[in-house]
């Protein structure tokens, strides 16, 4: 806490008693310990999972039996694993594109236009974000079965789109609210057409928000378990496949191997996207713009 750091006294440090010096360092030591602990808890288990995907044993347990890539070979020829990952990639890609389109339209409409019923429409978009996915999944299952629609990847994709694009609306609206409207008015006064206004003034300003929204939309769809579980019928996405394998049997090195590949791909994607956004925001205050971006959606 801020008051905890006593004001350092003037004069030679030798005069300061040891206990006082320890107290002076304590906040810094505590900060490092806390951060290290959180990182360990968040990433330690996943690192162990990756490590044991190379263990030459069919049960995941100590002692270490030796290095092998056998589980990766087995995973690459496993049809179910293949299909599940491909299904997830396909659905997430389509949902990302659809969410960005619908989300940008709605964000612009809600922040820049006035129309009757605007409060209701804004509330509708917001309420999707707080309804638990379990309940959306159950409601979707009942709805589609009442309509007689067969559950498939398409029903998964539709419901993913419904829960994901309001998130895009939240992120892009935050970007649009931050961006001063006087710039738009200046562009119009200087004779910009609607199209030029969008292309040269609005788009560069919301590009980082669009990139962030795209990453979150992809991750929300790719990682979504609850909705895919209820709406998939006989088709599996990656999380549903892991769940069903784990329900049937004990720990399997095969799942370790596939999960490691997925986790690695996600790390590469997030870090790559982060660097991209850093470049996009460089001429607008860099770091502070990035922290704004991470926190913008929740303010």
């Amino acid at each position, binding site marked *: 806490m*801020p008051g905890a750091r006593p004001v350092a006294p003037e004069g030679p440090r030798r005069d300061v008693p040891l206990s006082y010096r320890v107290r002076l360092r304590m906040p810094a030591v505590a900060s490092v310990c806390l951060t290290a602990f959180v990182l360990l808890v968040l990433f330690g288990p*996943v690192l162990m*999972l990756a490590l044991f995907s190379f263990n030459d044993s069919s049960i995941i347990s100590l002692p270490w039996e030796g290095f092998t890539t056998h589980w990766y070979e087995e995973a690459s020829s496993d049809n179910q694993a293949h299909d599940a990952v491909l299904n997830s990639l396909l659905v997430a890609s389509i949902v990302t594109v659809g969410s960005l389109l619908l989300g940008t339209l709605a964000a612009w409409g*809600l922040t820049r236009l006035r129309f009757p019923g605007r409060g209701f429409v804004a509330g*509708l978009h917001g309420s999707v974000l707080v309804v638990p996915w379990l309940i959306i999944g159950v409601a979707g299952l009942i709805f589609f079965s009442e309509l007689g629609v067969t559950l498939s990847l398409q029903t998964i994709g539709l419901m993913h789109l419904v829960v994901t*694009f309001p998130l895009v609306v939240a992120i892009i609206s935050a970007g649009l609210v931050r961006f001063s409207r006087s710039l738009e008015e200046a562009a*119009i006064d200087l004779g910009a057409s609607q199209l030029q206004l969008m292309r040269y003034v609005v788009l560069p300003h919301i590009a980082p928000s669009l990139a962030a929204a795209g990453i979150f939309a992809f991750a929300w769809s790719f990682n979504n378990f609850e909705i895919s579980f209820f709406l998939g019928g006989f088709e599996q996405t990656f999380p549903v496949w892991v769940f069903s394998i784990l329900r049937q049997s004990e720990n399997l090195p095969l799942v370790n191997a596939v999960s490691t590949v997925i986790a690695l791909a996600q790390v590469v994607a997030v870090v790559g996207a982060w660097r991209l956004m850093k470049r996009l925001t460089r001429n607008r205050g860099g770091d502070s713009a990035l922290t704004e971006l991470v926190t913008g959606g*929740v303010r």
Partner: protein
Amino acid sequence: MESASVPLERAPKRGRSRLRPFAFMSAPTVLLLLLFLMPMGVMLVISLEHGVLSGESGFTVSNFTDIVTDPLYREVALTTVIIATSAMLIQLVIAVPLAYVLAFKAGRWELPLLLFLVLADELNPMVRIYSWRMLLGREGLINSALMEIGIVNKPVDALLFSEFAVIIVLATSYLTYTVIPIYAAMKAIDRNLFEAALDLGAGWWVSARRVLLPLIAPGIFIALLLVYIPLFTDFASPALVGGSSGYMLGNAVQDLVLESGDLNAGAAMSMLMLAASAIFAVVAYRLSKIRQLES
């Protein structure tokens, strides 16, 4: 904006500008009406209908009363509240100091640490649950390590398939969404306030309780809104690491809908959980709008 800056000769186009909100808003709104509100409405109707097997027709509230009066479900509800609340408290105890470190102490590490938090959230939840199961299991890594060193001579069963396991897994699953709103609230604080408190003779505890806490309270309520509801309705973690003692309401819904195929009871249970979530969301949202807390 339109009337002030659009030149006069474009005035005839005003009819088109009245249609503009429609062009922007119709597709998103129709999608939500059709695939969000309609399914909710259908679920409400189903929850008020007699089960197919009962042979009766017409509306009833018996699906709801059956659930509310069933002592078994009351126990499950209690377990759910205990697990969700414990996981939430653990997260807050970690998140408030962590957000403080991020906002005021991390310096050049602030952005990399934020990136790690985002990354932790992007990792697939199923992979995360599986990795914990691998660590905590009967033949898991913690047990086999403990036995190797000789601290215990037979595996500790209580690690996996217990309330404890569910609380640990849930607390680590949503930490990102707990930290970020609190961090955002702290970033908005004027640091001079702390110095003023110090000058006026406040110790660190008084300064934390009277200056910091009231200012981050809205962030804490946002974190509750974002995290407590998913915690309360989670069913993947309890299904994979909870065993029978970690059975939560989400598992009950899953069993009703998919195992016993009782859509009416499943719909009623979902409606009850939705109502609880809605009440919680409204309260948390209202509280987050309060700018000053009396302490």
